């Protein structure tokens, strides 16, 4: 059974189509991320599932039940859909205490006071906010508000939780910590989650599967490794991670499916797989070596070196212009030195 099923969803604002025939399904316990640049329709899709936007056509099923469809006309209001949501702005009600915020979903459902108290205490402990129950929520820091928002979203044990860029308002360090905690919590409670973010690193780190969106359409659905190693389009290769786009054309297709790609400057590159009509070769910066130890080896010089701490980024001059290469900080080479760049055919993705 699927928890969330989106079928050919179209959302329009006047003449602009924000979401254009989007379909996907999410299994119980899965964490799926909608990833894309701002304006790609990811948040609109999420809000349509929550019942906060009215789609134009298509259908949405939650736990097998049709909650929205154009034909037959069906629109279950947001409050009857039984999903929960963490908002980008947290949407913590400033006129209530932390306890009242978290208890809201339970009160609406007419749960007894004793049960509310034990449930709220339980989820507040989960997000390490147990000591803050009686605080007025207007006195919380950003990170604390975020925790309360998560506690509120899971307090009434929803089957589906939607996350709308929940970490985008936190500073980098806290964001990295919360990412781990959220994933931990989601695994422990087995919550089916749909998560919207524009941060590709975050999407890769926490998801079971990633849906990359662009211009209202889905570009690719796959596991984080899939999306990173086997992008299906130039957009995905460019948006997720750091990649070099090398222009050229395929000269030979071998019997085993491997191909030879000739760059504009004439260098020949062997790729493990590819179509005859490909004109671009995508190559991850991290998969390029600065020693001649892989099958494809081409001479170049180091133009610029930038020390990032966790890695070093080199700009290499090579026959086809410039190449971005990321190496571990231990591989320190001088600017101006002549080197050979090399990379394995398996990491050459033809688009």
């Amino acid at each position, binding site marked *: 059974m699927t928890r969330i099923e989106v079928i050919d969803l179209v959302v329009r604002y006047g003449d602009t189509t924000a979401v254009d025939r989007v379909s996907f399904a999410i299994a119980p316990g899965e964490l799926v991320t909608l990833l894309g640049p701002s304006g790609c329709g990811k948040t609109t899709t999420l809000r349509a599932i929550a019942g906060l936007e009215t789609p134009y056509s298509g259908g949405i099923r939650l736990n097998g039940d049709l909650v929205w469809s154009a034909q037959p006309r069906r629109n279950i209001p*947001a409050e009857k859909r039984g999903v929960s949501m963490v908002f980008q*702005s947290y*949407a913590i*009600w400033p006129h209530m205490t932390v306890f009242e915020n978290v208890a*809201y*979903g339970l009160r609406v459902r007419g749960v007894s006071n004793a049960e509310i108290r034990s449930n709220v205490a339980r989820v507040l402990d989960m997000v390490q906010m147990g000591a803050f129950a009686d605080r007025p929520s207007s006195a919380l820091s950003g990170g604390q508000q975020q925790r309360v928002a998560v506690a509120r979203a899971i307090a009434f044990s929803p089957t589906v939780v939607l996350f709308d860029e929940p970490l985008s308002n936190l500073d980098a360090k806290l964001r990295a910590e919360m990412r781990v905690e959220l994933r931990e919590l989601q695994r422990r409670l087995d919550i089916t989650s749909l998560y919207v973010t524009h941060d590709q690193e975050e999407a890769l780190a926490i998801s079971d599967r990633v849906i990359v969106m662009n211009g209202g359409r889905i570009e690719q659905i796959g596991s984080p490794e899939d999306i990173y190693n086997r992008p299906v389009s130039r957009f995905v290769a460019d948006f997720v991670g750091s990649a070099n786009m090398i222009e050229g054309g395929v000269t030979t297709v071998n019997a085993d499916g491997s191909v030879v790609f000739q760059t504009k400057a004439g260098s020949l590159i062997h790729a493990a797989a590819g179509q005859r009509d490909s004109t671009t070769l995508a190559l991850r910066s991290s998969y390029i070596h600065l020693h001649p130890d892989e099958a494809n080896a081409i001479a170049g010089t180091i133009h610029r070196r930038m020390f990032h701490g966790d890695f070093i980024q080199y700009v290499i001059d090579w026959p086809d212009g410039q190449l971005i290469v990321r190496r571990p900080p231990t591989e320190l080479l001088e600017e101006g030195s002549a080197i050979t760049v090399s990379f394995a055919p398996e990491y050459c993705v033809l688009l």
Partner: protein
Amino acid sequence: MRDPRVWIVPILILVVGALVLYPLAFLITESFNIGDPQIFPPEEWGAGNYIQLFEEPRVIGNTLLVASIATVLAVVFGFIQAWILTRTQIPGRDRLERLMELPYYMTPLIGALAWGVLLGPKTGLVNQVWRSVGFSSDFFNIYSPQGIAWVMALFEGTVAFVMISAAMKSMDPSLEESSRVLGAGKLRTALRITLPMVAPGVLSATIFVFAEMLGSFAAAFVLGIPGRFYVVTTAIWESTLSYPPDYGHAAAMGLSLFGAMLITLGLARVIMRHGSYATITGKAFRPRPMDVGGLRYPLMGIAWGYIAVAVILPLAALTLTSFQRFATVIIPQMQFTLANYRTAFALGSLGPAFANSMILGVTVSSVAVPVIAVLAWIIYRTTMPGRMLMEYVVMIPAAVLWAWINIPIPLYGTLWLLGIAYFTVFLPLGLRTIAGVVSQVDKSLEECARVCGASWVYQMRTVTLPLLRPGLVAAWLLIFIASVRELGVSVFLMGPNSKVIAPSIVSSWLSASSELSAAMALLQTVMVFIAVAILFRVARQVTGTQA
């Protein structure tokens, strides 16, 4: 359960639309009536009333003269005050900024009375002193176009200060800082960066204030009528209340005024939208005030000087006058008495006038706030068709509401009529106030309640209304204050059995003594200031919880 929005919304739209559009339609019809002005609907039609306006250009000339002087004064005062209070480090800035709101609450009526007491020909307190030290003429005669403009600028021009200081505050200080870092001095930065950035704000404030001055009534009424100096608003009053009343002429004047104000305001809006660099982000920056060194104290003096002429001096003059038998500042001639206050309360109509004003204030605000809250919610939170049209309709009334003067239902001369008229006139004020609060409440706070499982009614009760409450209380108080001080509409619609304060003060001023009027004016001011004090407390709470 059916969603209650289905029936609430159309009813509201109908009622509000009728309240605003009926008087407008009446006015338009009446302005083309060239037959017997008492007969409605008209029997003879023609543009005669409009042509008449131009045959007698004196009133139009007066209006333009007074409005122009007042606008220049208001903008100059506003600019200086705004600059001192937002951009310089002077001691006691915060207190001064709060005091700047008082002239508006003092009302132009009270201001005009007070300045009449101070600078009236011969008897004015300042003129008394002037003559007693040997001069043979007055120091200044406030019963003059310049005098009227002075009072209008002080008590109605504070909006210029508000708009200009908003423009100055919304300017990102880093724009000036980058100029300094690139090597430009303070003066160069002020001329090349600061001034161009605030210029659109100043320009739109100027136009906005000019429109307001065109429709200004109280100062021209109190200080112009005794010398038979008429501007458009007082001329309208003259032609409706003279005998026989000339409604057609009045309607033509009213509509022309309304048109002029509408065009001017539209212009201000266009300028604001197209020319303003400073307010694009809508973000509130905390401008870093300039260190003005030794100039601190002179600048503080200027700022306090404004408060002195707009608040302290008028109130002191009224107080001094109200406790005397014959107002004077020459100490040996002073005769102190409580008689004026005794008369104020004893005077047949005055007790009821106070009571009526209170009743109207409480009732009108209590009815208006919930209605306007729902309207604001519809206009700014839903995608309902026609909601933008509503916004414009609701903004119409200000200038034309005395059109209720001749209605076919038997309400004339009752409090009901005043109540309905107040309600309609204060729609724009209420809507602006509440809309500000509605837009401050993040939409996701409401959406979150829905996603948590709350119905519309439950969400309204537990989230929306509690969040709006401080704003609604503030709107209630503002409408209450506006009702208690209302003059422009009341003076047309008040009947012998429905007296209210402000027109009563005016008639006492025009027919009885200035000492009695001063006492009545102070009583009204006290009422308004009590409400203002509560308002400020509420406003502080609002900013406290949202910060």
